[in-house]
């Protein structure tokens, strides 16, 4: 039912930013009885991943990425009602938001999209997020990662406050930071567990941190 030709057509249709074309293909696949998980894993995910890679290589830019993401989200909405509960993978959970006082969210939205594409559950707290809200949501969900960004040099120090509050509360979560004025050196100075200058790098960073955390938990269980 799910063919290489379909995957290839879906990929090229998404790269052409043809919204109606993508949504028709997905609806047709569902109507023809294709497995919803296969539509996601063999169709939509490789296509949007390629969009992300082209963006990283500078072959596509933010407007095209945002439109692709919008089409991708609409396509997912068609597939979602057909997914069974056990179809979902547990790759990890990320709580994401912009620093308190910062309303610049495009970068955060791109990171969120890329993390969702990679299979993470992302809880988006939005913009201008108080540090305590990150902590509360982590405790409520058990998220492995807290991701925060700042675009202003004046809101950047709030990232440091967030790291310190997470440490003081002894939360079992890694904190990663980003945003235009943030540098790797500054992230280290703030005591963050990771930094990425871009969205694709953030996905790799989160994958690594979640894998490390799970390995540590596994070893702890073995020792006990």
């Amino acid at each position, binding site marked *: 039912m799910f063919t290489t030709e379909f995957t290839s057509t879906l990929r090229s249709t998404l790269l052409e*930013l043809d919204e109606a074309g993508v949504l028709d293909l997905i609806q047709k696949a569902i109507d023809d009885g294709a497995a919803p998980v296969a539509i996601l894993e063999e169709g939509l995910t490789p296509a949007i991943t390629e969009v992300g890679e082209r963006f990283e290589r*500078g072959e596509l*830019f*933010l*407007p*095209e990425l*945002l*439109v692709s993401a*919008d089409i991708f989200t609409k396509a997912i909405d068609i597939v979602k009602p057909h997914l069974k509960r056990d179809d979902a993978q547990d790759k990890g959970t990320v709580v994401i938001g912009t620093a308190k*006082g910062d*309303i610049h*969210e*495009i970068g955060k*939205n791109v990171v969120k999209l890329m993390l969702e594409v990679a299979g993470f559950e992302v809880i988006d707290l939005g*913009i201008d997020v108080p540090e305590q809200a990150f902590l509360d949501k982590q405790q409520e969900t058990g998220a492995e990662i807290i991701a925060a960004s700042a675009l*202003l*040099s*004046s*809101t*950047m*120090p709030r990232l440091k406050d967030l790291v310190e509050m997470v440490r003081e509360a002894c939360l079992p979560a890694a904190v990663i930071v980003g945003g*235009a*004025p943030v*540098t790797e*050196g*500054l992230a280290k100075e703030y005591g963050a567990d990771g930094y990425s200058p871009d969205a694709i790098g953030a996905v790799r960073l989160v994958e690594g941190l979640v894998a490390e955390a799970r390995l540590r938990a596994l070893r702890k269980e073995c020792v006990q």
Partner: protein
Amino acid sequence: MMTSKERMEAAFRCEEVDRVPVFCEQGGINRRALGITYQEMVTDGEKCAVTDLAWHDLIGDDGVGVYFDTCVLAESYGQPLIYLKDEPPYPDPERYILTSPDGYHQLEPIDLMEAPRFREQIKGIEMIAELAGDEVLPRTLSIEPFVTLGEMRGMQQLLMDCVRYPDDVRAGLEAVTDMEIEFCRKVIDAGVRWIMLCHDYGNSSLMSQKMWMDLEGDSLKRLHRAIREKGCYLLVHDCDPNPYVDAAYELGDFDAFCLWSLPKDMSDWREFKAKYGHVCLNGVWEPTPLGTQRTYDQVVAESKQMIADLGPTGFILGPGCEFPQNGSILNAVAMVDASKEAAGMKVEPRRLSSARSASH
């Protein structure tokens, strides 16, 4: 010794200077000179003018003027803003006035003098021109039409519209450009002698060079020309990585670049200078390290190296984007001291600098 006015004019013309001028691009940190809130500074032209004059007296830099924030024109169109005590105002994301692509076609000309904050800005400029017009070259900031449109539509939505509804976006840009031109003519009439124009969308962080030029190229050419025709110097600014400098250069009718990031195809600033040495360059400090990570001594040393590499003619030392408002004021002083030292001028001993350097 030259006045700030003479120094800046000579730099724009790539002529000899007594020392390299310094422009701190102070858009928020200067309010600390008087201890006023951001909201006070951007709603009261006189306070804004006095703040920048106080900053000039305190620091000794060369870029004096009245600059509120990027939202003055959007607000004049009726876009509601959210005002904060410690940050610049921003458009209310729940109440963008352009709610669909049709909105781009409905932007009617407005009477800027009916807009309270624009009137305040004019008042502040007139005050600086009257109080210090003989010594300083009054400046202000203007923004490319894309920025204003994004403030009324939402930046993310505007970027998507650029793909889906390019003709509608172009219509909106044309309408806003007419008002940007009006804005610039009025501030020049009030006494502004150089304008920093932000090309915020002209870099790979936001869109391809092709899209930028296809959509906004003609509007920017009109805007550049209108500013220069009024006898005003024009400094074009891009505050993101990988600026499209070649495309900006092709627009013509400007006097200087303001940058902190090199274009993608260049490896260092000397290479930039070799290619564009006939155009004045302002920068090239990266704002965050300059304001928050370097010591006074480091800023002096690195600034002197920049002057050696890029000056003394056709160069204005400073951050290639706004000086962090929570940054070290002493590091602003350090740039002026570096400029004086590089020119063999006397520099006052800075006892505090040693203390700060030691603390790092």
